[in-house]
């Protein structure tokens, strides 16, 4: 959008131009040199570890092996155990529910707020614009802890407020029932992540030329027609971007789970990232299995983003 979308401009001076100093490094060499730090980071801290995770997932790795430094080859044994583990499938199901619910809420709430504050004639809409990023600024762990307090069955503020308005007579133990606990975690997560969507949609709305709306007014379009015929089609690209980002990030949810439910009650809120963390870094420290589950998760996320990118961008370009 706007200034962000500018195409990269080639240097104004082709190789061998008379302004280029003879002693100067060639363009390719200089580019390579300047990319060295980022490339080193990308390879050593991202690409290599991803490959190494694949290696670990095919080997037997636990605390004893870490001490000796030798990892016996295990073939597909870790993946076999992973697919046989009902808790893994349970975590995947929970993750899908979590991602689906949170993405839908993030998009709808994000669109809603962005549309409400689109018009700065609405009283206090400038204040809302200032506050949009506040939940984004809250550290995820803090977000988890504060919602754990809000939902607390004994001292929490949700019960206090609901009792004050007379919606409930007795305190409810929100985090004690599986369905409610999942809803609580989703609520907490969505509160922190929706602002990012509001921001994107708000920026996109500001970029829609006013003439389009004026033309629609001249033609006597109703507000609904304006929304479905002008606003929504023009927002589709940005909604596509937000869908991809929010889905991949939703699959990684960890902090709120740790802070609010620790996977409980029972294992009602075990999600994929929590599964990997628990198997790898808590007794029995089954790092081979953890690596296998991490790879499975990466494949799922990769496949979903791929399908998304193909499907959404084809629609956008059509």
């Amino acid at each position: 959008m706007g200034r962000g979308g500018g195409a990269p401009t080639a240097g104004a001076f082709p190789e061998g131009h008379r302004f280029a100093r003879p002693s100067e490094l060639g363009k390719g060499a200089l580019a390579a040199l300047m990319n060295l730090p980022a490339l080193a980071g990308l390879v050593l801290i991202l690409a290599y570890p991803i490959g190494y995770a694949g290696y670990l997932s095919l080997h037997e790795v636990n605390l004893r092996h870490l001490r000796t430094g030798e990892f016996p080859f295990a073939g597909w044994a870790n993946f076999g155990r992973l697919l046989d583990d009902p808790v893994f499938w349970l975590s995947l199901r929970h993750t899908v529910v979590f991602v689906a619910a949170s993405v839908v809420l993030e998009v709808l709430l994000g669109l809603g707020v962005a549309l409400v504050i689109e018009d700065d004639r609405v009283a206090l809409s400038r204040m809302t614009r200032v506050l949009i990023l506040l939940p984004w600024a809250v550290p995820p762990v803090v977000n988890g802890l504060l919602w754990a307090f809000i939902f607390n069955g004994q001292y929490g503020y949700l019960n206090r407020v609901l009792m004050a308005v007379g919606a409930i007579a007795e305190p409810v133990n929100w985090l004690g029932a599986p369905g409610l606990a999942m809803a609580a975690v989703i609520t907490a997560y969505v509160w922190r992540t929706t602002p990012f969507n509001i921001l994107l949609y708000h920026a996109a709305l500001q970029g829609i030329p006013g003439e389009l709306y004026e033309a629609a007014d001249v033609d006597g379009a109703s507000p609904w027609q304006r929304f479905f015929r002008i606003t929504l089609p023009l927002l589709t690209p940005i909604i596509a971007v937000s869908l991809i980002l929010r889905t991949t990030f939703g699959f990684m949810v960890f902090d709120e789970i740790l802070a609010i439910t620790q996977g409980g009650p029972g294992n009602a809120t075990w999600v994929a990232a929590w599964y990997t963390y628990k198997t790898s870094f808590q007794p029995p420290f089954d790092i081979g299995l953890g690596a296998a589950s991490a790879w499975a998760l990466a494949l799922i996320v990769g496949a979903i983003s791929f399908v998304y990118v193909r499907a959404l961008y084809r629609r956008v370009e059509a």
Partner: protein
Amino acid sequence: MTIRRAASPRRRLPWSRRLGLWLLNLAAIAFLIGPLVPVVLASLQSEKSLQQDLRALLPREYTLANFRLILSGGATRGPIFEQVSYLPKSVERFPSAFLNSLIVGAAVTLIALAAASLSAYTIARMGVWWTRALLRASVAARMVPLVVLMVPLYVMFRRYGLLNSLGGVVIAEVGFLLPYAVLILTPYLASLPAELEDAARIDGCTRFGAFWRIVLPLAAPGLAACAVILFVISWHELLIPLIVVSRPEFMTLPVVLAGLVSDYFVFFTLMMAICLLGLLPTAALVLLLRTYIVRGLVAGALKG
């Protein structure tokens, strides 16, 4: 970045529509700040006052005892905590964790910003064919789930002695954040006018000299936006330090906060005070530098 809607003849909105939008806007404000209200209220009272009346919304009496206790690392107990025999470890660890988070955040921001600005310049300006592939790699790298990196990084760091060091945390976070920084900076650098750079070249500046003397100073607002975003994400990061660090003296703030999970039923008021202190730095940054951050976040998302 955004084009303000052309100032069309501004008709007054019909009053029903104005009232409806105003109410919806109030709901949006309540959504954005509502959950923070209980945090403030709880942090300003004693645990006894919180537990006394389970239906009360406002504290019976206000006190700053929680904050005094935390900021002094548990030393200033005051009358409320005098009788308490057990205090959460997080209270004692708060000051050093705060400092560690600052150090890690500053280091991660500086290193990632330096490496990413060099890269972004080559992508945005130099027109070398393979730098486009680098941009695509950065987009893909942003989608890599952090959990996937945790297991191998732990094993690698264990081998190279990087566990239990702030350096290990910084290295892991830089690797994770670099692609994002490239995505934020590339469109910004591409949007800068090329004429000044060309003029410098004509005056005999080398290409790198033009980058260093002309482009970087021009890009200051974009660099600032990227820096704030990097710092905020680093300040928030839990999983990396949780896995790299197990010794208290190297713990960052999110790790210490996560430690409250095991004993939070003991002191809710104290927990909310710690939470408030933990979210204050990034909340202040975000509210103060809002326009920069918005620009950076939107640019970083759109390159995707």
